């Protein structure tokens, strides 16, 4: 009977366990979870904080007991793994217990970034990553008395936090070192338009501003000014939990390579044979660059976890990778970013009523797309872009072209991005 160890029980850890069980009904699957919770989706934290979702809704796969039973898992919760020895195939827990394994997955996820200098000012701040973060912000809002809030980070999470504060009639300012919103996903033109719409609704912005620290008065900027705030929320991104790799004794000459995340191949195996990684702690292939990169998205973690699980159970499976893509729905707006907006090319714009689609093309190759004001077409274009990068048919199907036209895109623009009629 094969023994599987899964370290971390989020989306990737869950999908790995499920896939292993589907391939190997007899194997012993042991999950080591440093929380007492079933897999939690960080993306749901703002929805929980704003009371749009109850506690039962933030654990999409069910309770620990249900998962334990349904997939025959041995779940150790509230326990940290101290080290992994890939040679003797053993892990040691912080309580001193050791467990042996035949195959192991590191799915330790990511955590919110807090620069040390931000702590030095002695001010309080709220993060938005874990259920505890969401509970804390929710309690603070319920407590009342907040007039002014500052959100550090014009990220996808930052905008959702700003929305939630705004809904609670709190004067909200977003501050960011970048010069416009969503710089990793949006073109400046689209970002400025979103900013304008948000300003019309009352959100304020301070761009190109470094934050020095957080004090009890608020956020101190690099120029010495203080944005006075009753509450400060920190949404400047995440960092992969890769510390376990430093405590890993690897098979000779095969150290686990770590850049920003743990580097994996298309089988989700690290550079050390027998050790797999998946989810927000790892770097899989970015289909556009061919290089490894953290693409921290829920569905990506699911696909990576499934692929890792199948390979661990002996069923050779490949996950070719993904593209950068985001959809965010906030304050009655939809923004979708597909591909890397920094890649070069000629910009083409389609505008009709409230719909704007911009695409950057390098010759006939689509490098990136921004959509503002229509969620319906996002899947067609995302799948088209992914298919192109996977070497598939470069043309949109007749049905997809018809659906795009049905949503208001001109035949000229459809032809430009891959139509053929």
């Amino acid at each position, binding site marked *: 009977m094969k023994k599987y160890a899964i370290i971390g029980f989020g989306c990737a850890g869950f999908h790995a366990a499920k896939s292993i069980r589907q391939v190997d009904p007899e194997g012993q699957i042991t999950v080591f979870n440093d929380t007492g919770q079933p897999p939690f989706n960080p993306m749901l934290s703002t929805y929980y904080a704003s009371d749009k979702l109850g506690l039962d*809704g933030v654990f*999409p796969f069910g309770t620990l007991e249900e998962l334990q039973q349904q997939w025959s898992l041995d779940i150790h919760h509230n326990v940290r793994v101290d080290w992994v020895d890939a040679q003797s195939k053993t892990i040691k827990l912080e309580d001193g217990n050791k467990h042996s394994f035949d195959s192991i997955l590191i799915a330790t996820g990511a955590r919110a970034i807090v620069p040390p200098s931000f702590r030095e000012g002695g001010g309080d701040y709220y993060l938005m990553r874990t259920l505890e973060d969401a509970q804390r912000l929710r309690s603070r809002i319920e407590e009342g008395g907040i007039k002014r809030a500052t959100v550090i980070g014009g990220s996808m999470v930052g905008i959702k936090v700003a929305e939630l504060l705004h809904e609670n009639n709190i004067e909200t300012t977003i501050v960011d070192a970048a010069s416009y919103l969503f710089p990793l996903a949006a073109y400046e033109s689209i970002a400025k338009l979103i900013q304008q719409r948000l300003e019309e609704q009352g959100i304020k912005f301070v761009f190109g501003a470094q934050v020095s620290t957080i004090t009890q008065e608020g956020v101190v900027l690099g120029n010495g000014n203080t944005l006075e705030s009753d509450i400060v929320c920190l949404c400047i991104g995440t960092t992969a939990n890769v510390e376990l790799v430093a405590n890993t004794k690897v098979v000779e000459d095969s150290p686990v390579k770590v850049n920003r995340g743990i580097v994996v191949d298309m089988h989700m195996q690290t550079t050390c044979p027998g050790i797999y990684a998946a989810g927000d702690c790892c770097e899989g292939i970015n289909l556009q660059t061919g290089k490894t990169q953290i693409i921290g998205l829920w569905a990506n973690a699911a696909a990576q976890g499934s692929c890792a699980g199948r390979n661990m159970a002996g069923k050779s499976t490949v996950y070719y990778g993904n593209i950068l893509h985001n959809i965010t729905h906030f304050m009655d707006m939809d923004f979708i970013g597909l591909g890397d907006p920094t890649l070069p090319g000629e910009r083409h714009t389609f505008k009709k009523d409230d719909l704007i689609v911009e695409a950057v093309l390098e010759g006939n190759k689509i490098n990136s797309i921004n959509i503002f004001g229509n*969620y319906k077409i996002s899947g067609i274009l995302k799948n088209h872009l992914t298919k192109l990068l996977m070497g598939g048919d470069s043309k949109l199907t007749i049905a997809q072209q018809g659906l795009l036209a049905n949503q208001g895109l001109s035949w000229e623009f459809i032809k430009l991005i891959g139509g053929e009629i």
Partner: protein
Amino acid sequence: MSKIFILDTEKCIGCSSCAIACMDQNDIEPYEGDIPFRVCFTVEQGSDKDSPFSYLTMACMHCEDAPCINSCPAGCLSKDMDTGFTVFDNNNCIGCHSCAMACPFAAPCFDKDGKMVKCDGCIDRVRAGLEPACVRVCPYDALQLVAKEDYEKEQKYKKAKILAYMAFDK
């Protein structure tokens, strides 16, 4: 037994009966802001083609490995094991539109409360032995719901027939 929707474009006359029946069945009121689950449209293929026009009717394709399922952060979508339909329970839907970005066929819609709704294959009708509303009203049987197994057998037979014809022709 898994079922699939098939559309014979040579029979479809673009009458949109299927879309109307779908709206009726699912109480969709487009003039009140509801978005229809099924859309019909004409594709102009050019006057040089054998058939210059083609009519299409599209709703959820109930993909075998439906990408919307894993994309939903709240676990609202799943597969019905009997029919193979992609079904949903939108109680915990947060209206994030992630399913829409995963779907290559623009199937997910959002209701006035911002919750995801879409074609569920008229699963209640099918479980009761009835045809889905769209299939029921199609005047030329262009749109059909068939057992996947039967469809695959027929496709294999058709392919074999073509191969045999080609071999004979040589």
